């Protein structure tokens, strides 16, 4: 085991956990971990989710399109991953189904995970569902099917 590689793996793990912690703190602060808040957005009673997504998107755009391009490569080595979204039927059929599930539960994948940190054990229902759904999806795919980033 090369020391430099071990250092880099540790640094990557720390950065990833730290990034996740910011993400999770933001999800909790914004109330996205509360299904009632998400459902009130989907019923046009509270437009807060637009501010959450807008705020996250502005920072992401600035960094993906600005800072990172100037930087050239990730600080801890390797390259920048390219987003795999494609103009194909599955992208939209899947999105339509995702919306139905989101409207049923009021929970999407990030808040389902983060919600556990707020002591909300009801999120285990959603987590079990998401795992079953992703499992069914993979079960039905041929091995060569190229899954996308997300």
């Amino acid at each position, binding site marked *: 085991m090369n020391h430099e590689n071990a250092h880099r793996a540790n640094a990557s793990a720390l950065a990833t956990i730290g*990034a996740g*912690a910011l993400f999770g703190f933001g999800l909790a602060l914004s109330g996205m971990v509360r299904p009632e808040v998400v459902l009130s957005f989907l019923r046009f009673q509270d437009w807060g989710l637009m501010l959450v997504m807008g705020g996250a*998107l502005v*920072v992401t755009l600035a960094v993906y399109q600005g800072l990172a391009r100037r930087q050239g490569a990730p600080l801890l080595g390797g390259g920048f991953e390219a987003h795999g979204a494609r103009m194909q039927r599955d992208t939209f*059929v899947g999105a339509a189904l995702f919306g139905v599930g989101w409207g*049923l539960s009021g929970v999407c*994948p990030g808040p389902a995970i983060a919600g556990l940190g707020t002591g909300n054990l009801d999120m285990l229902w959603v987590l079990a569902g998401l795992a079953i759904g992703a499992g069914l*999806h993979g079960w039905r795919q041929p091995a060569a099917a190229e899954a996308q980033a997300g």
Partner: protein
Amino acid sequence: MIASLFPLGWAHYLAGGLIIGLGVALLYVTTGRLAGMSSVFSSSWSFVSQRPFFQQPRWLESRVWRLQMALGLVAGAALWWLLLGPTQALDTQVPAWRLLLGGVVAGYGARLSGGCTSGHGICGMGSLKLPSLLAVGVFMATGFLTAQVLA
């Protein structure tokens, strides 16, 4: 006007969104990774299923960091709970069947689509991907319909 659009106030929404963006940005700047959160539900199957789909390099190579990220999400939300949250644990009045069934449909759909609110909504639109922008429009529309029909 502001009060009717945001009955619970607006500042925490914007602050939370900006912090989520900082997390997405930190992950990208340091490691080059995209912070879509639905993939962990596919990649983690590679630990237990020998199905060829789950044994693809893209899942084997990302399954550890995706779980690290998930651990971070739980820790960050727990920090919020300790510092700013209510004394009681959060809970929800949404019935269990809706949480479970909604999870199954959303999990299948997100993986078929290649992203969710974070994968398409934040990372995809942040990458200026037109399919992601359209996917967000589609899931918002079916989300609105479902939530209003079942209200």
